[in-house]
């Protein structure tokens, strides 16, 4: 068995440790490029959402590299993500490829198929200690990749030379691929923290702060969303991303595990959105409210074009924006999105935030003392 899986930012690093430890040979798809997107767009139905197209491109490229088994997750719910796996299986079968499609659905939709799929994904035999060891290490690696990306977003506007920051983080990510034990992971963490701390800072303290909310794939996958976070960072903005694969997994496996962040976001969203609308609709609303409370200057909402849950969230976010006086930029991404238009919009959004801050300061100086002093 030569298994493959879809890309999602640095998920391949964690899975590249998990599967080989379980004794499964893997063929990771090549990095997402324009070619991946073109393959997916050509083969998928035109009105399918963008993540389906990109992940389909991943599968085809991996099959061409020699993969014969595909691991995919599924689900049932108001979001189309639930039938990604089924649809991709049909498309790949129609193309005449001889591959095995292993679909891991949520256990609440049938415990038998779930256990069968899990057994296949776990290498055929369930040896509990081995699985626990492999899961612990790859989970730690996945967490660390997200921490590194969080540092990149936060520090891009604060270091003297962002290229050095990229270099340190990219090198650490590369080194993570060959981590074999938790001790090695800890050592790598320590070294990365030291290297990042030693980067010369530019001493800025007055940077704008922007939060990213949206759909789990588009909001995270920088190779697809035109790297909005880097664009913001280069404009001198501190960026925080509320979307994370770690939290997504923790929340999906509830009640076994729990995601504090998601529970908080859902609670905050309650006054605006009471019911589950599929995907990350509620999370987007709740996270935007959290950013408003934490005093962020603005929010960027990233989602695939025609994504139903996020369109619901977009409508609700307009009320959030008004109530909290929080500017929100909505960006729908698909294969037709033009980079020039997106860059102009993001630049203009940062200008809006800057002018607002400037105006507020001017008015405070004009009207006298701070009202809360």
């Amino acid at each position, binding site marked *: 068995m030569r298994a493959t899986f879809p890309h999602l930012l640095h998920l391949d690093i964690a899975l590249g440790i998990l599967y080989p430890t379980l004794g499964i040979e893997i063929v990771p798809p*090549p*990095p997402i*490029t*324009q*070619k*991946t997107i073109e393959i997916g767009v050509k083969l998928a139905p035109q009105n399918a959402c963008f993540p389906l197209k990109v992940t389909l491109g991943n599968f085809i490229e991996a099959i061409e590299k020699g993969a014969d088994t595909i691991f995919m997750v599924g689900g049932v719910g108001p979001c189309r993500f639930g039938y990604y796996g089924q649809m991709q299986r049909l498309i790949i079968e129609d193309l005449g490829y001889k591959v095995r499609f292993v679909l891991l659905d949520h256990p609440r939709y049938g415990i038998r198929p779930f256990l069968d799929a899990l057994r296949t994904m776990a290498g055929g035999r369930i040896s509990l200690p081995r699985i626990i060891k492999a899961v612990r290490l790859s989970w730690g690696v996945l967490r660390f990749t997200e921490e590194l990306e969080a540092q990149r977003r936060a520090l891009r506007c604060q270091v003297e030379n962002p290229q050095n920051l990229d270099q340190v983080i990219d090198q650490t990510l590369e080194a993570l691929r060959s981590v074999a034990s938790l001790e090695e992971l800890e050592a790598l963490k320590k070294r990365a923290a030291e290297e990042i701390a030693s980067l010369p800072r530019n001493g800025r303290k007055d940077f704008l702060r922007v939060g990213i909310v949206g759909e789990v794939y588009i909001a995270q996958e920088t190779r697809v969303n035109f790297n909005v976070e880097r664009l913001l960072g280069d404009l001198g903005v501190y960026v925080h991303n509320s979307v994370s694969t770690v939290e997504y997994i923790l929340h999906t496996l509830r009640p076994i595990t729990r995601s504090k962040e998601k529970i908080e976001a859902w609670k905050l969203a309650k006054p605006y959105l009471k019911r589950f609308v599929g995907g990350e609709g509620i999370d987007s609303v709740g996270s935007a409210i959290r950013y408003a409370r934490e005093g962020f200057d603005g929010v960027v909402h990233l989602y695939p074009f025609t994504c139903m849950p996020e369109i619901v969230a977009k409508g609700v976010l*307009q009320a959030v924006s008004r109530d909290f006086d929080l*500017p929100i930029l909505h960006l729908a991404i698909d294969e*037709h999105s*033009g980079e*020039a*238009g997106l*860059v*102009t*919009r993001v*630049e*203009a959004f940062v*200008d*809006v935030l800057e*002018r*607002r801050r400037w*105006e507020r300061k001017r008015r405070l100086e004009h009207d006298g003392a701070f009202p809360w002093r």
Partner: protein
Amino acid sequence: MELFLGVDVGSVTTKFVLMDKTKRIVASCYLRTSGDPIAALKEGLRYIERHMPEGGVICGVGTTGSARHLAGVIVGADIVKNEITAHAVAAITKVPDVRTVFEIGGQDSKLIIIRNGVVEDFAMNTVCAAGTGSFLEHQAVRLNVPIEEFGKLALQARQSVRIAGRCTVFAESDMIHKQQLGFGKAEIVKGLCEALVRNFINNLAASREIEDPIVFQGGVAANQGMVQAFRDFFGGKKRIIVPEEHGVMGAWGAAILAMEYAPEKTAFQGFSVVERNFTSRSFTCTDCPNACEIVVLKEDNQVRALWGSRCGKWTPETATNRLEEEEDTVPSLVFPTECVPGRCAMHG
């Protein structure tokens, strides 16, 4: 006298504004880009040089528009800003209590919401041509009406024809259909203006509240038929202002931003730029399947700027080597130097 230069290189037209310290426009020009922004920039600079007042010194330069980065390198800009900010700044300067800005240019249209002199929200349409000046120009050609006469013709209509304006392709077939039913040109032109207004409001305004005074600017604001169509749309209840400088508002905004930015020493390259030899060349990087198109801007043999690479691996030296390699391997396409007018498919 301290002067500031604003340059707006758009898809269809290139605009220059020369402004003094009181934000008054000293000279301005409005040119066709005609697909060659470098030539348009040089032509504009020549015009500004001729109209420089005596004793005037350029102390700051701002560029905007879709070719703002290119213009910034060639002219030597102190500040490079996006069109939305530039247009908003100019509108606020002209009409301090402005609450909404409509800007319709050649390739895109913008709606900017302003409250208390600060931009609060904006929307921009870059995907669909049905809400832009190009749409009107294209239809004017079909109707055989010069674009300058288009607006006046619309005002002559006693009634209008409803034309589906959601998409340029359908608008065209609908327009031909209405023509064949026997409607007059003026009625059809008026119908087109109304279709464009509906499209603008549907696409950009969505759920945003449009409050007056509204400043209508951009090349299309010169079209009286469009102004009237907007007035009719709001039932005459909203105050719509078309500033005299409507065509060069973006460039004016860029000049104001350059003044606010107040550089100690300007990066302006001087008017001698027009004598210099700029060429832009491009190649497709084949190192990964991303196939980035790398554009290299050269002055004589020196690389002045390069962009288009996603990973950022290209340096002036490697890009130059690559271009030379390409010249060696790919035989340059030879075009016939002369063609007979009337017989040539391209020029006839």
